[in-house]
């Protein structure tokens, strides 16, 4: 499944580079993010972009296994986002401190 001609390989390489730039920009939001939800949102988008990047790597190097990595990333990323959302809904780190104080 390696691209048969240089045209497709160039297209795949360009889109991989664009995806890397996009991931760098998203990391900027994860660093800046005023609230914890902003950081979780950036993490969620980062996982989605990583899935796309891994799929392109699978094409470029002809390794089908990378697509399985992408599916596993989708599973883990979804569960992580849901877990973080529930954590925020329960009051995040403030609540954790409160529990420590009650002891």
């Amino acid at each position, binding site marked *: 499944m390696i691209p048969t001609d240089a045209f*497709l390989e160039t297209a795949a390489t360009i*889109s991989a580079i664009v995806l890397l730039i996009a991931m760098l*920009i998203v990391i900027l939001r994860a660093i800046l993010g005023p609230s914890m939800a902003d950081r979780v949102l950036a993490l969620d*988008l980062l996982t989605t972009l990583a899935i796309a990047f891994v799929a392109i790597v699978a094409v470029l190097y002809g390794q089908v296994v990378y697509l399985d990595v992408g599916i596993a990333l989708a599973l883990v990323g979804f569960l992580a986002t849901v877990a*973080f959302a529930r954590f925020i809904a329960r009051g995040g780190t403030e609540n954790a401190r409160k529990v420590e104080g009650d002891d």
Partner: protein
Amino acid sequence: MIDLLIAFLLLSGSAFALVAAIGIVRMPDLFIRMHAASKAGTLGAGLILLGVAVLANDASVSVRAVIAIVFIMLTAPIAAHLLGRAAYKTGVPLWQKSELDEWNAREEK
């Protein structure tokens, strides 16, 4: 011809991903940022995976790419909904120029 289609899918997918990334940095508040992240980001990844599925020309590979697309399309709205709800409940501020807060309007009635 099919090469052009694949190149179009890959490049437009990465363009959407870049737009999502720019949106998540430039938009004014969390809830507006979620539009960029969960719509443009999902569409970008979906287009790229679709391009890979067409390019592979092999059933076992294409099915994996399509499964990944279906999974992303199913889970992205759920994750975005949960995150937005949690953020609103814990008082993440809206943009100053927001004109309508439907949740708040409903609870005041």
